[in-house]
Protein backbone atom coordinates (compact mmCIF):
# COMPACT_ATOMS: atom_id res chain seq x y z
CA UNK A 1 0.00 0.00 0.00
CA UNK A 2 1.43 3.35 -1.00
CA UNK A 3 0.49 6.33 1.13
CA UNK A 4 0.85 8.73 -1.77
CA UNK A 5 -1.54 6.74 -3.96
CA UNK A 6 -4.42 6.96 -1.52
CA UNK A 7 -6.55 10.00 -0.71
CA UNK A 8 -7.63 11.02 2.80
CA UNK A 9 -5.99 10.28 6.11
CA UNK A 10 -2.97 8.02 6.57
CA UNK A 11 -2.84 4.60 8.18
CA UNK A 12 -1.93 5.80 11.66
CA UNK A 13 -4.76 8.32 11.50
CA UNK A 14 -7.27 5.60 10.61
CA UNK A 15 -6.01 3.56 13.57
CA UNK A 16 -6.16 6.64 15.80
CA UNK A 17 -9.79 7.25 14.92
CA UNK A 18 -10.75 3.72 15.89
CA UNK A 19 -8.72 3.88 19.10
CA UNK A 20 -10.72 6.95 20.16
CA UNK A 21 -13.74 4.60 20.44
CA UNK A 22 -12.07 2.53 23.17
CA UNK A 23 -13.62 3.16 26.58
CA UNK A 24 -12.03 2.98 29.99
CA UNK A 25 -11.70 -0.61 31.22
CA UNK A 26 -12.16 -2.26 27.82
CA UNK A 27 -10.41 -5.46 26.77
CA UNK A 28 -9.36 -5.08 23.14
CA UNK A 29 -7.94 -7.45 20.53
CA UNK A 30 -5.96 -5.86 17.69
CA UNK A 31 -5.48 -7.70 14.41
CA UNK A 32 -2.31 -7.80 12.32
CA UNK A 33 -1.50 -4.75 10.17
CA UNK A 34 -3.06 -1.30 10.62
CA UNK A 35 -5.16 -2.40 13.66
CA UNK A 36 -1.91 -2.96 15.61
CA UNK A 37 -1.26 0.78 15.26
CA UNK A 38 -4.25 1.53 17.53
CA UNK A 39 -1.99 0.83 20.51
CA UNK A 40 0.19 3.82 19.53
CA UNK A 41 -2.71 6.25 19.92
CA UNK A 42 -2.81 8.62 22.89
CA UNK A 43 -6.29 8.21 24.39
CA UNK A 44 -5.46 9.86 27.72
CA UNK A 45 -5.80 7.92 30.96
CA UNK A 46 -8.26 5.38 29.62
CA UNK A 47 -7.24 1.98 30.92
CA UNK A 48 -7.21 -0.55 28.02
CA UNK A 49 -6.15 -4.19 28.31
CA UNK A 50 -4.82 -5.60 25.05
CA UNK A 51 -5.43 -9.31 24.46
CA UNK A 52 -3.64 -11.46 21.92
CA UNK A 53 -4.89 -14.79 20.52
CA UNK A 54 -1.87 -16.67 21.89
CA UNK A 55 -2.99 -16.01 25.44
CA UNK A 56 -1.19 -12.80 26.35
CA UNK A 57 -3.48 -10.51 28.35
CA UNK A 58 -2.21 -6.98 28.97
CA UNK A 59 0.64 -6.52 26.53
CA UNK A 60 2.23 -3.15 25.85
CA UNK A 61 4.34 -1.70 23.09
CA UNK A 62 6.92 -3.41 20.90
CA UNK A 63 10.08 -4.23 22.87
CA UNK A 64 13.10 -1.97 22.21
CA UNK A 65 15.84 -3.58 20.10
CA UNK A 66 18.12 -5.69 22.26
CA UNK A 67 15.52 -6.04 25.00
CA UNK A 68 13.20 -8.49 23.31
CA UNK A 69 11.96 -11.57 25.08
CA UNK A 70 11.97 -13.98 22.13
CA UNK A 71 9.28 -16.09 23.78
CA UNK A 72 6.87 -13.20 24.07
CA UNK A 73 4.99 -12.21 20.92
CA UNK A 74 1.64 -10.67 20.03
CA UNK A 75 -0.69 -12.10 17.37
CA UNK A 76 1.45 -10.55 14.65
CA UNK A 77 4.60 -12.25 15.91
CA UNK A 78 6.15 -8.99 17.17
CA UNK A 79 8.18 -9.11 20.38
CA UNK A 80 6.11 -7.00 22.74
CA UNK A 81 6.40 -5.91 26.36
CA UNK A 82 4.00 -6.56 29.22
CA UNK A 83 2.16 -4.00 31.32
CA UNK A 84 1.87 -4.37 35.11
CA UNK A 85 -1.02 -6.71 35.81
CA UNK A 86 -0.49 -8.82 32.68
CA UNK A 87 -1.29 -12.55 32.67
CA UNK A 88 -0.65 -15.46 30.32
CA UNK A 89 -3.09 -18.30 29.59
CA UNK A 90 -3.04 -21.19 27.11
CA UNK A 91 -4.73 -21.20 23.72
CA UNK A 92 -8.01 -22.87 24.72
CA UNK A 93 -8.41 -20.45 27.63
CA UNK A 94 -7.45 -17.54 25.37
CA UNK A 95 -10.20 -18.41 22.91
CA UNK A 96 -12.51 -19.04 25.86
CA UNK A 97 -11.99 -15.36 26.59
CA UNK A 98 -12.87 -14.51 22.98
CA UNK A 99 -15.77 -16.93 22.50
CA UNK A 100 -17.13 -16.20 25.97
CA UNK A 101 -17.77 -12.57 25.02
CA UNK A 102 -15.11 -11.10 27.28
CA UNK A 103 -13.53 -9.00 24.49
CA UNK A 104 -15.10 -5.54 24.35
CA UNK A 105 -13.79 -4.76 20.88
CA UNK A 106 -11.80 -6.42 18.14
CA UNK A 107 -10.18 -4.38 15.38
CA UNK A 108 -9.44 -6.17 12.12
CA UNK A 109 -8.41 -5.50 8.58
CA UNK A 110 -10.61 -6.79 5.74
CA UNK A 111 -10.87 -7.14 1.96
CA UNK A 112 -14.54 -6.17 1.96
CA UNK A 113 -17.30 -5.10 4.32
CA UNK A 114 -20.98 -5.06 3.44
CA UNK A 115 -23.79 -2.69 4.39
CA UNK A 116 -25.35 -5.51 6.42
CA UNK A 117 -22.21 -5.77 8.55
CA UNK A 118 -20.75 -8.88 6.88
CA UNK A 119 -17.05 -8.79 6.15
CA UNK A 120 -14.43 -10.88 4.33
CA UNK A 121 -10.79 -11.16 5.30
CA UNK A 122 -9.60 -14.76 5.02
CA UNK A 123 -9.77 -15.93 1.42
CA UNK A 124 -9.26 -14.32 -1.95
CA UNK A 125 -11.28 -15.17 -5.03
CA UNK A 126 -10.16 -18.42 -6.63
CA UNK A 127 -7.82 -19.29 -3.77
CA UNK A 128 -7.79 -22.82 -2.37
CA UNK A 129 -7.77 -22.62 1.41
CA UNK A 130 -6.90 -19.42 3.19
CA UNK A 131 -5.72 -17.82 6.39
CA UNK A 132 -8.43 -17.83 9.04
CA UNK A 133 -6.36 -17.69 12.20
CA UNK A 134 -8.48 -16.30 15.03
CA UNK A 135 -10.54 -13.99 12.83
CA UNK A 136 -13.74 -16.06 12.72
CA UNK A 137 -13.77 -16.54 16.50
CA UNK A 138 -13.16 -12.85 17.14
CA UNK A 139 -15.68 -11.76 14.52
CA UNK A 140 -18.44 -14.01 15.84
CA UNK A 141 -17.88 -13.38 19.53
CA UNK A 142 -16.36 -9.98 20.39
CA UNK A 143 -18.88 -7.45 21.71
CA UNK A 144 -17.92 -4.99 18.94
CA UNK A 145 -16.20 -5.58 15.61
CA UNK A 146 -14.39 -2.56 14.18
CA UNK A 147 -13.03 -2.87 10.64
CA UNK A 148 -10.14 -0.86 9.25
CA UNK A 149 -9.49 -0.85 5.52
CA UNK A 150 -8.47 1.37 2.66
CA UNK A 151 -11.55 2.72 1.01
CA UNK A 152 -10.80 1.36 -2.47
CA UNK A 153 -8.66 -1.42 -3.96
CA UNK A 154 -5.54 -0.73 -5.99
CA UNK A 155 -7.76 -0.86 -9.05
CA UNK A 156 -10.02 1.76 -7.48
CA UNK A 157 -12.91 -0.61 -6.75
CA UNK A 158 -14.99 -0.12 -3.59
CA UNK A 159 -14.23 -2.26 -0.54
CA UNK A 160 -17.44 -1.07 1.13
CA UNK A 161 -19.95 -3.10 -0.86
CA UNK A 162 -23.64 -3.92 -1.01
CA UNK A 163 -22.85 -7.61 -0.44
CA UNK A 164 -19.48 -9.36 -0.13
CA UNK A 165 -18.56 -11.46 -3.16
CA UNK A 166 -15.57 -12.94 -1.29
CA UNK A 167 -16.15 -15.70 1.29
CA UNK A 168 -17.19 -13.98 4.52
CA UNK A 169 -15.54 -14.23 7.93
CA UNK A 170 -18.80 -13.51 9.77
CA UNK A 171 -22.20 -12.03 9.00
CA UNK A 172 -23.90 -8.99 10.47
CA UNK A 173 -21.26 -8.29 13.08
CA UNK A 174 -19.46 -5.11 11.98
CA UNK A 175 -20.46 -2.08 14.05
CA UNK A 176 -17.96 0.49 12.75
CA UNK A 177 -15.77 0.90 9.66
CA UNK A 178 -12.85 3.32 9.47
CA UNK A 179 -11.17 4.01 6.13
CA UNK A 180 -8.86 6.68 4.79
CA UNK A 181 -12.02 8.44 3.53
CA UNK A 182 -14.01 8.52 6.76
CA UNK A 183 -15.93 6.76 9.49
CA UNK A 184 -18.93 4.60 8.58
CA UNK A 185 -21.63 2.50 10.19
CA UNK A 186 -23.21 -0.42 8.34
CA UNK A 187 -26.93 0.05 8.98
CA UNK A 188 -28.40 -2.85 7.03
CA UNK A 189 -29.82 -0.47 4.41
CA UNK A 190 -26.51 1.18 3.61
CA UNK A 191 -23.42 2.81 5.02
CA UNK A 192 -23.98 5.79 7.28
CA UNK A 193 -21.17 8.32 6.84
CA UNK A 194 -20.53 9.78 10.30
CA UNK A 195 -17.21 11.57 9.81
CA UNK A 196 -15.40 12.66 6.69
CA UNK A 197 -11.63 12.82 6.12
CA UNK A 198 -10.03 16.15 5.17
CA UNK A 199 -9.91 16.77 1.39
CA UNK A 200 -12.80 14.40 0.60
CA UNK A 201 -16.34 15.31 -0.42
CA UNK A 202 -19.51 13.30 0.18
CA UNK A 203 -19.95 12.91 -3.56
CA UNK A 204 -16.43 11.53 -4.02
CA UNK A 205 -17.06 9.05 -1.22
CA UNK A 206 -20.42 8.03 -2.64
CA UNK A 207 -18.79 7.37 -6.02
CA UNK A 208 -16.22 5.08 -4.35
CA UNK A 209 -18.66 3.20 -2.14
CA UNK A 210 -20.76 0.18 -3.08
CA UNK A 211 -24.39 0.00 -1.97
CA UNK A 212 -26.18 2.97 -0.50
CA UNK A 213 -24.39 5.82 1.25
CA UNK A 214 -26.36 7.90 3.73
CA UNK A 215 -24.99 10.90 5.57
CA UNK A 216 -25.36 11.44 9.31
CA UNK A 217 -27.32 14.61 10.17
CA UNK A 218 -24.45 15.63 12.40
CA UNK A 219 -21.72 14.73 9.88
CA UNK A 220 -18.41 16.03 11.19
CA UNK A 221 -14.75 15.97 10.23
CA UNK A 222 -12.82 12.78 10.98
CA UNK A 223 -11.66 13.06 14.58
CA UNK A 224 -7.96 12.97 15.29
CA UNK A 225 -6.14 11.82 18.40
CA UNK A 226 -4.22 14.00 20.86
Amino acid sequence: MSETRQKGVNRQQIADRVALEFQDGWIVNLGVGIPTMCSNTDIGDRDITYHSENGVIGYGGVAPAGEEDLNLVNAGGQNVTLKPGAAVVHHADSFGIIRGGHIDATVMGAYQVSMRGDFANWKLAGQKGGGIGGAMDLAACAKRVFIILEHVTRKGEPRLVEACDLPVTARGVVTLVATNYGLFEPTGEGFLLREIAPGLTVEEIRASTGGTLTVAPNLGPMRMAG
Partner: protein
Amino acid sequence: MGQKSKQVASFQEAVADIPDGSTIAFGGFAMPGTPFNLIRALMEHGAKRLTLVANTTGGAQQPRMPDIGMLVENGQVAKVICAFTAATRPTDVLPFTKYYESGEVEAELVPQGTLAERLRAAGAGIPAFYTPTAVGTELAEGRETRVINGREYLLEYALPLDYAFIRARRADAAGNLRFHRSQRNFNPVMATAASCTIAEVDEAILPAGAIDPDDVHTAGIFVHRLVQVPPAPEGLWPTKRQERAR
Protein backbone atom coordinates in the same frame (compact mmCIF):
# COMPACT_ATOMS: atom_id res chain seq x y z
CA MET B 1 4.87 -40.96 41.41
CA GLY B 2 8.14 -39.39 40.57
CA GLN B 3 10.15 -42.52 41.21
CA LYS B 4 11.11 -42.89 37.56
CA SER B 5 12.25 -40.06 35.34
CA LYS B 6 10.48 -39.48 32.03
CA GLN B 7 13.65 -38.08 30.49
CA VAL B 8 14.97 -39.79 27.37
CA ALA B 9 18.48 -39.28 26.05
CA SER B 10 17.86 -37.96 22.55
CA PHE B 11 15.28 -36.61 20.13
CA GLN B 12 15.90 -39.67 17.94
CA GLU B 13 14.97 -41.98 20.81
CA ALA B 14 11.94 -39.86 21.68
CA VAL B 15 10.37 -40.31 18.23
CA ALA B 16 11.76 -43.76 17.34
CA ASP B 17 8.49 -45.70 17.73
CA ILE B 18 6.20 -43.37 15.79
CA PRO B 19 4.36 -45.46 13.19
CA ASP B 20 3.30 -44.42 9.70
CA GLY B 21 -0.19 -42.96 9.64
CA SER B 22 0.02 -41.28 13.05
CA THR B 23 -1.79 -38.07 13.95
CA ILE B 24 0.74 -35.67 15.46
CA ALA B 25 0.21 -32.14 16.77
CA PHE B 26 2.88 -29.47 17.08
CA GLY B 27 2.65 -26.66 19.62
CA GLY B 28 3.80 -23.17 18.77
CA PHE B 29 2.45 -19.78 17.75
CA ALA B 30 4.96 -17.90 15.59
CA MET B 31 8.34 -19.07 16.96
CA PRO B 32 7.64 -19.41 20.72
CA GLY B 33 6.70 -22.88 21.88
CA THR B 34 7.47 -24.65 18.61
CA PRO B 35 9.22 -28.04 19.04
CA PHE B 36 11.76 -27.46 16.27
CA ASN B 37 14.12 -30.17 17.53
CA LEU B 38 11.42 -32.82 17.60
CA ILE B 39 10.26 -31.84 14.11
CA ARG B 40 13.82 -32.23 12.83
CA ALA B 41 14.03 -35.67 14.48
CA LEU B 42 10.75 -36.66 12.83
CA MET B 43 12.15 -35.67 9.44
CA GLU B 44 15.15 -37.93 10.06
CA HIS B 45 12.87 -40.68 11.35
CA GLY B 46 10.88 -40.63 8.10
CA ALA B 47 7.41 -41.77 9.28
CA LYS B 48 4.93 -41.42 6.39
CA ARG B 49 1.22 -40.74 5.70
CA LEU B 50 1.08 -38.52 8.76
CA THR B 51 -1.81 -36.26 9.75
CA LEU B 52 -0.37 -33.10 11.25
CA VAL B 53 -2.16 -30.61 13.51
CA ALA B 54 -0.80 -27.11 14.13
CA ASN B 55 -1.71 -23.46 13.95
CA THR B 56 0.07 -22.92 10.63
CA THR B 57 1.89 -24.93 8.02
CA GLY B 58 4.98 -22.78 8.57
CA GLY B 59 7.56 -21.62 6.12
CA ALA B 60 6.98 -17.88 6.42
CA GLN B 61 9.92 -17.15 8.72
CA GLN B 62 13.55 -16.64 7.68
CA PRO B 63 15.89 -18.37 8.30
CA ARG B 64 13.75 -21.42 7.62
CA MET B 65 13.21 -23.69 10.64
CA PRO B 66 11.94 -27.30 10.65
CA ASP B 67 8.18 -27.07 10.07
CA ILE B 68 5.19 -28.75 8.49
CA GLY B 69 6.17 -27.40 5.08
CA MET B 70 9.47 -29.29 5.30
CA LEU B 71 7.74 -32.51 6.39
CA VAL B 72 5.45 -32.08 3.38
CA GLU B 73 8.41 -31.51 1.05
CA ASN B 74 9.95 -34.64 2.63
CA GLY B 75 6.94 -36.70 1.46
CA GLN B 76 5.81 -37.61 4.98
CA VAL B 77 2.41 -35.92 5.12
CA ALA B 78 -1.06 -37.02 4.02
CA LYS B 79 -3.13 -34.31 5.67
CA VAL B 80 -2.81 -31.10 7.62
CA ILE B 81 -5.35 -29.68 10.10
CA CYS B 82 -4.64 -26.01 10.80
CA ALA B 83 -5.91 -22.42 10.96
CA PHE B 84 -3.83 -21.18 8.03
CA THR B 85 -3.27 -22.99 4.72
CA ALA B 86 -2.22 -19.63 3.29
CA ALA B 87 -0.62 -16.57 4.85
CA THR B 88 -2.75 -13.59 5.87
CA ARG B 89 -0.88 -11.39 3.39
CA PRO B 90 -1.70 -12.76 -0.06
CA THR B 91 1.78 -11.82 -1.26
CA ASP B 92 3.43 -14.32 1.16
CA VAL B 93 3.47 -17.72 -0.52
CA LEU B 94 3.89 -20.67 1.85
CA PRO B 95 5.91 -23.73 0.72
CA PHE B 96 2.90 -25.86 1.67
CA THR B 97 0.60 -24.14 -0.82
CA LYS B 98 1.86 -25.83 -3.97
CA TYR B 99 1.38 -29.34 -2.51
CA TYR B 100 -2.09 -28.42 -1.31
CA GLU B 101 -3.16 -26.83 -4.58
CA SER B 102 -1.93 -29.80 -6.59
CA GLY B 103 -3.90 -32.17 -4.34
CA GLU B 104 -0.84 -34.07 -3.13
CA VAL B 105 -1.70 -33.17 0.47
CA GLU B 106 -5.13 -32.81 2.00
CA ALA B 107 -5.98 -29.94 4.36
CA GLU B 108 -8.71 -29.18 6.87
CA LEU B 109 -8.94 -25.49 7.60
CA VAL B 110 -10.22 -24.80 11.14
CA PRO B 111 -10.70 -21.48 12.92
CA GLN B 112 -7.97 -21.10 15.54
CA GLY B 113 -10.30 -21.05 18.54
CA THR B 114 -12.25 -24.04 17.25
CA LEU B 115 -8.96 -25.89 16.74
CA ALA B 116 -7.90 -25.16 20.33
CA GLU B 117 -11.33 -26.16 21.65
CA ARG B 118 -11.48 -29.40 19.63
CA LEU B 119 -8.13 -30.37 21.14
CA ARG B 120 -9.27 -29.38 24.62
CA ALA B 121 -12.46 -31.42 24.10
CA ALA B 122 -10.45 -34.49 23.10
CA GLY B 123 -8.40 -34.22 26.28
CA ALA B 124 -11.42 -33.55 28.47
CA GLY B 125 -13.72 -36.32 27.19
CA ILE B 126 -16.17 -34.02 25.40
CA PRO B 127 -16.94 -35.74 22.07
CA ALA B 128 -18.66 -32.70 20.52
CA PHE B 129 -19.71 -29.14 21.32
CA TYR B 130 -21.47 -26.16 19.79
CA THR B 131 -19.73 -22.91 18.85
CA PRO B 132 -20.84 -19.64 17.26
CA THR B 133 -17.59 -19.44 15.27
CA ALA B 134 -17.86 -19.87 11.48
CA VAL B 135 -21.67 -19.82 11.40
CA GLY B 136 -22.80 -18.33 8.09
CA THR B 137 -19.45 -18.91 6.40
CA GLU B 138 -18.20 -21.29 3.71
CA LEU B 139 -16.82 -23.53 6.50
CA ALA B 140 -20.33 -24.20 7.79
CA GLU B 141 -21.77 -25.23 4.41
CA GLY B 142 -23.54 -28.58 4.60
CA ARG B 143 -22.76 -28.99 8.26
CA GLU B 144 -24.97 -29.44 11.29
CA THR B 145 -26.10 -26.33 13.13
CA ARG B 146 -28.49 -25.77 16.00
CA VAL B 147 -30.31 -22.78 17.41
CA ILE B 148 -29.88 -22.39 21.17
CA ASN B 149 -31.52 -19.46 22.98
CA GLY B 150 -32.19 -17.82 19.62
CA ARG B 151 -28.64 -17.96 18.27
CA GLU B 152 -27.25 -20.33 15.66
CA TYR B 153 -24.29 -22.56 16.52
CA LEU B 154 -22.14 -25.04 14.63
CA LEU B 155 -21.48 -28.57 15.90
CA GLU B 156 -17.78 -29.38 16.21
CA TYR B 157 -16.12 -32.67 17.16
CA ALA B 158 -13.18 -33.49 19.42
CA LEU B 159 -9.80 -33.89 17.73
CA PRO B 160 -7.83 -36.66 19.48
CA LEU B 161 -4.12 -37.09 18.81
CA ASP B 162 -1.73 -39.99 18.79
CA TYR B 163 1.24 -37.76 19.61
CA ALA B 164 1.77 -34.19 20.76
CA PHE B 165 5.15 -32.56 20.21
CA ILE B 166 5.50 -29.58 22.52
CA ARG B 167 8.14 -27.24 23.89
CA ALA B 168 8.45 -25.99 27.47
CA ARG B 169 10.82 -23.89 29.51
CA ARG B 170 11.13 -26.12 32.58
CA ALA B 171 10.26 -29.70 33.55
CA ASP B 172 10.65 -32.03 36.48
CA ALA B 173 11.29 -35.76 36.15
CA ALA B 174 7.58 -36.50 36.74
CA GLY B 175 6.77 -34.52 33.57
CA ASN B 176 5.33 -31.42 35.20
CA LEU B 177 5.93 -28.45 32.89
CA ARG B 178 6.21 -24.70 32.97
CA PHE B 179 6.17 -22.45 29.91
CA HIS B 180 7.67 -19.00 29.55
CA ARG B 181 5.29 -16.24 28.44
CA SER B 182 3.69 -16.88 25.04
CA GLN B 183 5.65 -20.11 24.70
CA ARG B 184 2.58 -21.63 26.36
CA ASN B 185 0.01 -21.18 23.54
CA PHE B 186 -1.31 -24.53 22.18
CA ASN B 187 1.16 -26.68 24.13
CA PRO B 188 -0.82 -27.47 27.31
CA VAL B 189 -3.97 -28.19 25.30
CA MET B 190 -2.29 -30.54 22.85
CA ALA B 191 -0.64 -32.37 25.75
CA THR B 192 -4.08 -33.32 27.14
CA ALA B 193 -5.36 -34.54 23.75
CA ALA B 194 -2.54 -36.99 22.93
CA SER B 195 -1.97 -40.64 23.80
CA CYS B 196 1.73 -39.80 23.96
CA THR B 197 3.11 -36.32 24.64
CA ILE B 198 6.77 -35.60 24.00
CA ALA B 199 8.18 -32.35 25.37
CA GLU B 200 11.43 -30.69 24.41
CA VAL B 201 12.60 -28.56 27.31
CA ASP B 202 14.84 -25.47 27.37
CA GLU B 203 16.37 -26.12 30.77
CA ALA B 204 17.92 -29.15 32.46
CA ILE B 205 15.24 -31.58 33.75
CA LEU B 206 14.74 -31.06 37.50
CA PRO B 207 14.08 -33.74 40.13
CA ALA B 208 10.39 -34.57 40.71
CA GLY B 209 8.91 -32.03 43.11
CA ALA B 210 11.26 -29.18 42.17
CA ILE B 211 8.29 -27.29 40.69
CA ASP B 212 5.79 -26.22 43.33
CA PRO B 213 2.43 -27.96 42.71
CA ASP B 214 0.71 -24.56 42.51
CA ASP B 215 3.12 -23.44 39.76
CA VAL B 216 2.68 -26.34 37.34
CA HIS B 217 1.21 -25.34 33.96
CA THR B 218 0.87 -28.85 32.52
CA ALA B 219 0.52 -31.75 34.96
CA GLY B 220 3.00 -34.60 34.56
CA ILE B 221 0.24 -37.14 33.98
CA PHE B 222 -0.13 -35.63 30.49
CA VAL B 223 3.57 -35.85 29.61
CA HIS B 224 5.26 -39.12 28.65
CA ARG B 225 8.73 -38.25 27.38
CA LEU B 226 11.10 -35.35 28.06
CA VAL B 227 14.17 -34.33 26.08
CA GLN B 228 16.44 -31.49 27.09
CA VAL B 229 17.36 -29.12 24.24
CA PRO B 230 21.17 -28.93 24.00
CA PRO B 231 22.86 -25.54 23.55
CA ALA B 232 23.02 -24.03 20.05
CA PRO B 233 24.13 -24.82 17.40
CA GLU B 234 23.21 -28.46 18.16
CA GLY B 235 19.89 -27.41 19.74
CA LEU B 236 17.53 -25.39 17.57
CA TRP B 237 16.18 -22.00 18.63
CA PRO B 238 17.83 -20.08 21.46
CA THR B 239 16.93 -21.75 24.71
CA LYS B 240 17.09 -18.53 26.72
CA ARG B 241 17.91 -15.05 25.61
CA GLN B 242 17.27 -11.52 26.54
CA GLU B 243 14.50 -12.18 28.99
CA ARG B 244 13.40 -9.15 30.83
CA ALA B 245 13.55 -9.48 34.57
CA ARG B 246 10.33 -8.20 36.04
